[in-house]
């Protein structure tokens, strides 16, 4: 199968043609202006990964919502499942930036961490 994707590794944005075999493995990439294109195409076709950023509800803290992110990318296919899990969380204690809110989130080997302190005078 041949699929067209846009390389996002730099602002040039090459249109890549990605050829895959039956099992979805990349066999050929064309349209790239540099060697980063095929690497991106392989990752993006075989196992696309994304950092999830979202918000978590709090109780008894200054901020009603605390922004969070996964500390490493997770499979793109897991984004909505991860969101459903994020919505179930409730933060009741003060956190600092980078502090873990849920470790080994969904068993994906990544942590969900805070990106903002949950109270105004926290430093």
């Amino acid at each position, binding site marked *: 199968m041949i699929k067209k994707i*846009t390389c*996002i590794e730099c602002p040039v944005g090459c249109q890549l043609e990605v050829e895959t075999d039956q099992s979805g493995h990349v066999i050929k990439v064309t349209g790239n202006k540099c060697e980063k294109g095929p690497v991106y195409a392989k990752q993006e076709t075989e196992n696309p990964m994304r950092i999830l950023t979202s*918000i978590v509800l709090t109780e008894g803290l200054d901020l*009603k*919502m605390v922004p969070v992110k996964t500390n490493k990318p997770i499979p793109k296919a897991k984004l*909505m499942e991860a969101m459903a899990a994020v919505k179930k969380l409730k933060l009741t204690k003060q956190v600092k930036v980078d502090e873990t809110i849920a470790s080994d989130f969904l068993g994906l080997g990544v942590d969900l961490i805070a990106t*903002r302190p949950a109270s*105004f005078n926290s430093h």
Partner: protein
Amino acid sequence: MAAAVAAQKAGVKDILLLERDQYLGGILNQCIHTGFGLHHFKKDLTGPEYADRFIKQIEAIRDIEVSLKSFVVRLTKDKILTYLKPGKLEEIKAKALIMATGCRERTREMTHISGTRPAGIYPAGLAQKMINIEGLLPGKEVVIIGSGDIGLIMARRFTLEGAKVKAVIEIQEKTRGLIRNVVQCLEDFSIPLYFRHRIAKIYGKDRVEKVLVENTVNGETFELPCDTVLISVGLIPENELIEMACVEIDKKTNAPVSKEVNKCSIEGIFVCGNSYKVYDLVDNVTRDSVKAGQMAAEYLKGLK
């Protein structure tokens, strides 16, 4: 914050930082996505993380006094500031002044869309604030006007929160946003992006019910049912205060008339960040605001 830190490093001893909100950081607080700081910190940070790094710097400097919930309402050309704090009205005279009041969003009134005036029409940045700060979802079925980065980011944000984004409508033939955002905010969720299209009409009595989308090349139209329309068609510098002080303002861009970065028509008043001109990248705001701090310090040395 960058200007304050830079001014202090350049030798200024008595700095007051006024902020109307309950916290520092400005618009960065609502930009919870990544993509900030690649130049300045050589790291891919979220908006709040980028702000936090500056907040920590500010809090470590004793020469900088931070006054929150302080809404500046008046400025004269002699640099006398009047600001409201809960329960009081304060006045202060500055020797040098750095204005970093940011920008605001263009509204529907500025984009000429016909139709009724129902609820459900939001500037995209306001919707961003409602979701990310207040935890409120403005609607369930969304059409977004404008494919700049804010529009794209909000398409993903609404989708992740469980809303259905019907389409992003762009009048130009290509997006002003980053390709990365087109891929990760639209293509990831199969959200259609229509180039050379515009919203010809918004329908709905109390709440938005649908929009009429028009192809600007051949005039063909189609309808999209939705309960929410996000408008993301650009930003304008927020400069009412310096205008009050009789600083010359360019009526078209709402930016100060300026010969050199951060300067305006009054000596000793410096304007930086999005109030000087609308920036795409926070890293560039920081770079130029550092300059503003240094310029203010230079100016103060010249006074003595």
